[in-house]
């Protein structure tokens, strides 16, 4: 489904050309602050009445999501949880502008999304690294595509590799790295352009438990420095509660927003492994699970019925 759908917004590339002129090229190697000229600093996400229908190969319409309405405040970390196949990834694709909604609208920083949204980075479960590019060149891709001169892009990429703890691995190829290291590269590649919006589609889903915890901590640290607005898809409730300011529960297919929970755990959260044992955490996690449980059961019953 997603393979087909990514092809649908081919016309959406027009908006990008304007960006390279808008974004100044003089990014310092330290890169602590958002480059000047990036208007509005952080941008919130407003999704209203979002519906997406796909045409199946048989020619039928399939409604992936229907009437999704949710908002992410500027600089907020928002997670989406829901049963498999409920349209979480579809929602992200609409926000990124890779696809066009069938109905409803997505607004980023006050502007309706038409075509690929500016200042967005994507992180997938499968690490979308170029296997034929070295680690350094992988991280450099973002600035290079924005037209940053190669020398500056190299400096920037080296700095980011240092920040994710991969200094000295610049010349390796992705297949020479462990799963956790590849995730770090993907994270550096996603954050190097200092995105206003970070879209994460189960980024840590394929990692082992220990590596996952380490990556979550690193993500929180980097997020607190840069403060992009984050939409984070996960199946892991612990992960959702530990990282987020807001957790959105979606219904089973066709997906729509069922509940929204605000997570009032104080920031900075510190170690995600520690926070799991706090009373407030457990209480919130329990409430979200209550909401999610029915949907998961329903989705399971449906797929089991199809299989029978």
């Amino acid at each position, binding site marked *: 489904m997603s393979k087909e759908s990514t092809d649908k917004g081919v016309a959406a590339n027009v908006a*990008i050309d304007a960006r390279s002129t808008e974004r100044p090229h003089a990014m310092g190697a330290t890169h602590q602050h958002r480059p000047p000229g990036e208007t509005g600093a952080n941008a919130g996400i407003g999704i209203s009445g979002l519906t997406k229908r796909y045409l199946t190969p048989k020619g039928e319409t399939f409604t992936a999501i229907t009437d999704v309405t949710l908002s992410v405040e500027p600089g907020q970390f928002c997670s989406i949880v829901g049963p498999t196949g409920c349209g979480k990834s579809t929602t992200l694709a609409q926000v990124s502008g890779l696809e066009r909604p069938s109905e409803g609208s997505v607004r980023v920083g006050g502007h309706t999304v038409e075509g690929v949204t500016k200042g967005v980075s994507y992180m997938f479960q499968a690490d979308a690294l170029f296997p034929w590019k070295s680690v350094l060149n992988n991280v450099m891709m973002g600035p290079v595509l924005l037209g940053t001169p190669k020398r500056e892009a190299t400096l920037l990429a080296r700095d980011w590799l240092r920040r994710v703890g991969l200094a000295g691995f610049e010349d390796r190829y992705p297949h020479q790295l462990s799963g956790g290291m590849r995730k770090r590269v993907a994270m550096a590649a996603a954050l190097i352009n200092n995105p206003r919006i970070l879209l994460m589609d189960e980024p840590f889903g394929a990692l082992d438990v220990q590596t996952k915890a380490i990556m979550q901590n690193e993500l929180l640290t980097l997020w607190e420095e840069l403060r992009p607005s984050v939409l984070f898809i996960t199946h892991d409730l612990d992960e959702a509660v530990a990282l987020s300011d807001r957790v959105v529960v979606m219904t089973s297919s066709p997906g729509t927003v069922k509940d929204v929970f605000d997570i009032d755990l104080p920031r900075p959260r510190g170690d995600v492994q520690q926070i799991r044992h706090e009373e407030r955490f457990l209480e919130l996690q329990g409430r979200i699970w209550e909401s999610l449980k029915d949907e998961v059961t329903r989705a399971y019953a449906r797929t089991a019925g199809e299989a029978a």
Partner: protein
Amino acid sequence: MSALAQGETVTPQRQAAAADAGKAAHRRLTRWIWAGRAILAVAVVGGWQWFTEEGWVDKFFFGQPSEIWNSLVKLFTEGTAFGTIWENLWVTMQEAILGFLLGTLVGVVLGILLGSNKYLSAVVGPYIRIVNSIPRIVLGSIFIVAFGLGVFPKVLLAAVLVFFVVFFNAFQGVREVDQNLVANVRVLGATPVQVAIHVTIPSAMTWIIASLHTAFGFAIIGALVAEVLGAQQGVGLIISQAQGTFDPNTVFACMVIIAVITLGAEYLISLLEHSVLKWRPPNRSESQAI
């Protein structure tokens, strides 16, 4: 391992001993492989010589290794009715290489274009399959009638044979591109041309390079067959001439020459593969090398 479990440390001496033992085992294996290869070659060539010598197999029809060697020597010392063997070889190689380059170029370009455009591939796809299913080698006759006995029709036939191999691989390679990667660079602001340069082409390169091994063989076949059908010079002409004079040994001698050249080209393509695809995990190309 058991030593480690008991809490002992692995001494450098023991490590060195283990490494030496591993190397020795590897050397033994390599020796046996080469011994097996030599035995196989001796058995086949020697058996052939023996059978024809004893008259169990008629050497008039099937040639004889020693006679093939004599023909080879004659080809290189005395030359042929159409000039020296080098001249003829040069003509054939020229045709094969030009055909190879032309076919590869067109195959790669069309393969990538059709692979990345759903509409075009849907429109042209059935026709390509039809053309692929007809015996293209017969086109050689048409090319020679249309373009004469020169080099050009041979280049064309070689190119046609090469084209389909490369085209289908390039097409498939583009289809196999990781859509996540495409989405990723598009979100980062890549134009369609940048998507092609950074994602589609490098990704399809694995498939294209793999097809070049087979493609060069096809280029040689195309050039030879076209020469057999009608030429003024070339190894194919020597072959058809030898056929006319009931001289299987010269035919085999030409086969040997072409085989050596094809092996050389194969080696060059492997070098290219290694340099272009050095990012790949090593085990895949190594298992191919066997």
